[in-house]
């Protein structure tokens, strides 16, 4: 009986954790917006990558090149078409691996051009493939998948 009661806190902790995980997944799945999404793989070291997204062309350029991890990088996004109501932002992450929120906030630096600074971190797993998801207001998200240099 004593052993049984001694196990209660552990069991309780495990149950609470499972509930928290379930809630988290529920929240995450519920927050998935119905925004338009498009993805492309490209060689970011050669220059700007571009993608068609709901009638606009979204181009991403990262400098300096070659694009290295753990270095200060400048991200430039160009969006064709009518002026946007807000500024885009970029979420950096690895496909299939949770790396935490790494957002590049951008400022308008030209008529259709937005610029921001950020860092792509190095993953000790040795994987070099990264994804930059450019969210454009009222348009959707253009994801660019590319390899970086470690």
């Amino acid at each position, binding site marked *: 009986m004593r052993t049984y009661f001694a196990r209660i806190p552990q069991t309780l902790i495990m149950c609470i954790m499972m509930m928290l995980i379930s809630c988290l997944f529920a929240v995450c799945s519920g927050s998935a917006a119905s925004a338009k999404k498009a993805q492309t793989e490209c060689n970011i070291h050669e220059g700007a990558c571009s993608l068609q997204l709901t009638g606009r062309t979204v181009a991403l350029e990262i400098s300096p090149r070659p694009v290295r991890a753990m270095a200060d990088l400048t991200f430039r996004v160009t969006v064709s078409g009518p002026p946007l109501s807000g500024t885009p932002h970029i979420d950096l992450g690895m496909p299939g*691996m*949770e790396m935490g*929120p790494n957002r590049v906030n951008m400022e308008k630096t030209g008529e259709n051009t937005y610029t921001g600074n*950020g*860092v792509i971190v190095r993953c000790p797993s040795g994987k070099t493939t990264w994804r930059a998801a450019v969210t454009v207001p009222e348009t959707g998200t253009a994801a660019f998948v590319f390899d970086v240099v470690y």
Partner: protein
Amino acid sequence: MWFTESIYLVFLATGFTVGFGHCIGMCGPIVISISLQLKDRPVFFPQLFYNLGRTVTYAILGGIMGATASFTRFAADVGGLQKGILVFAGILIVLMGAGMTGWLPAGRIFKNAPPVAGFAVSAYKRLIAANRAILFLPLGMVLGLLPCGPVYTAMIAAARTGMDAGTTFSGMLAGAGVMACFGLGTIPALLLLSQVSNVKWLKHRDMIYKTGGILMILVGVFFTWKGITY
């Protein structure tokens, strides 16, 4: 109230979600090694102190990030140190695995280590024989320096909070807060893993125990190799 500011909650939640994926993969072998090595002794408090040690290191790193408001400057400076920590963690796991298997001489070497065997063996013996759980705090603090992608991401956020802060001191506090929240968020997953790997019947099946030791040696060799090539 600082805690109500979203960045702290975001990184507490990030630590929680990353903990159940990334951390179990990266720190899991270390957590399992500690649990298996403690054998019949309670694992909860040693594991808790190991995790709190990691969190203390994260908070210190966050403080540095917040105060300097720069991530890449730090990354350039401590790359070599992190490489060394990765190699150290690998060797530690190999030693723990070797001690567990029994038929490898490592376990006996540690039991009868001569005084000239050096600081590492002495520290290892003390740690494994430790009755005081708090001795796992410094181990956690050292291993908190392991290179890790999500930790780097949290450090970038800490550096950004430092940029937004009015003074160096407030930047340091804000950065430390972000990283501490991240570290605390990762604890539930690793504590849960430590409890799962503490299943008594598993630890008392000699064959499984020895297999676990061999797997630990392989994981340790992998860590060491990763450290050398990092």
